């Protein structure tokens, strides 16, 4: 019994309940949300330390024996995801609190906390049905967050988002039914043994069905269409946390199920082809756009391709690269959207034709953008370079030259569209300037918004500085993923 594992889930849920009670006290709500997320982050750091020292940890909720009860498990991969994920959630929360004058703030806090709990549960659960429940908790909260303003544009985009995700959830229920019918268990560790005895054809069908389900959530090719359409319409803080975390929960689930459940049935070629198309289509979509938030949204898709590339190799170095890449993407992506928020706050728009020359008005935002954008494009010595280097060298070891060539070309495309944002937003003169730009004076930006963005960019720089130790952690995580004996032993006691 290890109660620590439940804290990242239980504390935000409890705080969410309290923020509903304190609905008329904005300061109390802010404090509760901040303390809730910070406590969850503290607990996940403690989990990481423990897992690093003693190996995978497991706890049975309610004390029911395996495989009857619900299991919470933390191995190195999930602990790393938890720490980086919750740190990003905390920084984005600070940004949202700093962005004053929001009439929906009293609804934002409880929903944001519920979403945090859902994300934490998806990383910690060791049970397929519980993973479905965790997804639903996260998604239901995200449905509310994405449509919180209730404007025409948000309702339109939110509708697409909700329907697509509901469909994915129903496919998930169907997949759960098939898995249960063929194995009679919902526990990952127990399921891994039982799936191995099934016929290869059945294994492949189940594996592909789960890949489709998580592929929709992770926005891989050809299931990504909903993402660039719906993300940019939400408010900045919401888009930032969605961009940083929600698709990565899908990637996490792909990595977890493909390595743990189907070790003898690897979809190497399929995953590599998907990875290639995801990268290329995402970056081409980004180049075509004329709005900072939309360019960045297409890049979410493009970067998912790199993670799938690492998974598709099914080698220790490939998976280590993928894990590192996910960890680096979460803060980088979120911080780019936060910079987008700073731009929007100052200039009133993120359309490249409406803004320009902002480097004089908001030099801090320009600097932060430059660091995060170069990291995204993979320029040394930033964290994106380390991640891409790891993936490329893993690809060369596995002799998958074609996909490596594609990934390098896509990097150039990424750099191109980042330069496009830089030229459009921070340099030059706008074609149709917004009223704020015509007024000349820079708009006052609350210090907390700036501080949150600085902290998140600081986290990406820290990942680059500590790349050596973090990468060796990722390597150990990847070794555990490919040889889940320790995971299974921890669960089954």
């Amino acid at each position, binding site marked *: 019994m290890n109660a620590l594992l439940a804290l990242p889930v239980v504390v935000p849920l409890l705080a969410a309940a309290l923020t509903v009670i304190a609905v008329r006290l904005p300061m109390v709500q802010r404090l509760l949300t901040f303390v809730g997320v910070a406590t969850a982050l503290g607990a996940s750091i403690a989990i990481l330390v423990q897992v690093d020292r003693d190996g995978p940890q497991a706890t049975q909720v309610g004390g029911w024996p395996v495989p009857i009860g619900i299991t919470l498990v933390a191995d190195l991969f999930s602990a790393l995801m938890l720490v980086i994920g919750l740190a990003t959630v905390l920084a984005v929360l600070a940004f949202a609190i700093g962005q004053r004058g929001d009439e929906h703030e009293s609804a934002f806090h409880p929903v944001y906390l519920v979403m945090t709990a859902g994300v934490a549960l998806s990383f910690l659960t060791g049970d397929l049905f519980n993973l479905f429940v965790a997804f639903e908790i996260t998604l239901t909260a995200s449905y509310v967050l994405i449509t919180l303003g209730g404007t*025409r544009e948000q309702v339109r985009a939110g509708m697409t988002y909700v329907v697509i995700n509901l469909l994915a959830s129903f496919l998930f*229920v169907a997949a759960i039914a098939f898995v249960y019918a063929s194995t009679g268990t919902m526990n990952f560790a127990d399921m891994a043994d039982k799936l191995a005895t099934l016929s290869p054809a059945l294994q492949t069908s189940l594996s592909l069905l789960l890949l489709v389900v998580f592929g929709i959530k992770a926005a891989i090719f050809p299931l990504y269409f909903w993402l660039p359409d719906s993300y940019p319409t939400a408010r900045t803080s919401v888009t930032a946390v969605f961009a940083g975390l929600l698709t990565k929960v899908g990637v996490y689930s792909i990595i977890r199920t493909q390595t743990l459940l189907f070790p003898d049935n690897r979809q190497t070629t399929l995953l590599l082809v998907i990875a290639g198309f995801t990268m290329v289509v995402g970056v081409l979509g980004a180049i075509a756009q004329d709005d900072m938030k939309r360019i960045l949204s297409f890049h979410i898709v493009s970067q998912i391709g790199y993670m799938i590339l690492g998974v598709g190799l099914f080698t220790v170095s490939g998976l280590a690269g993928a894990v590192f890449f996910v960890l680096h993407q979460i803060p980088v992506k979120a911080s780019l959207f936060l910079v987008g928020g700073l731009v929007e706050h100052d200039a009133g728009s993120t359309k490249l034709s409406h803004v320009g020359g902002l480097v004089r008005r908001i030099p801090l935002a320009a600097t932060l953008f430059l660091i995060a954008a170069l990291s995204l494009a993979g320029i040394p010595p930033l964290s994106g370079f380390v991640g891409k280097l790891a993936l490329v060298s893993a690809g060369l070891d596995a002799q998958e030259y074609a996909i490596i060539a594609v990934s390098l070309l896509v990097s150039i495309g990424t750099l191109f569209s980042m330069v496009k944002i830089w030229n459009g937003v921070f340099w030059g003169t706008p074609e149709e300037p917004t009223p704020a730009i015509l007024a000349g004076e820079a708009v006052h930006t609350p210090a907390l918004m700036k501080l949150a963005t600085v902290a998140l960019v600081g986290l990406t720089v820290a990942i680059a500085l500590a790349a050596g130790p973090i990468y060796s952690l990722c390597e150990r995580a990847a070794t555990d993923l490919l040889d889940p004996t320790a995971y299974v032993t921890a669960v089954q006691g």
Partner: protein
Amino acid sequence: MTIIPALTVAVLFATGTYLILQRTLTRIILGVGLIGNGANLLLLVSAGPAGRTPLIGSGDPAGFTDPLPQALALTAIVITFGLSAFLLALAYRSWQVTHDDEVEDDIEDRRIARLRGELDPDLDALTQELEELEDVAAEPPHHTPNTGRGEP
């Protein structure tokens, strides 16, 4: 026999998929409901053939039905119910702001499409219509009926 539940699941999924592919929101919501029911029924079927006794009292374990899928289905039904309610509220909000039951095109997509086919007058006209609609929506609340989007 599980053939009848299996067929029911297939029909629910097929009709639901058809309805989700329509452009009117009410049909999409009905489609989501049908697929949701199909998925939940599939969970129940995964317990094995119907007609066994529930898990009460003592007896031969093989004679009892498996209670877990029923518990899972119950959870899934509750989730489906909650989300259907949310979807209905969202559709109502959509009707409030657009006075139309149809899902609109994304205006940025339209603009990108126009870049590609600058000589296509039909596409141009549609985009302009949408841009005008966007301007109308930006104005303060009003009670204009259908804003001339053509036949509903």
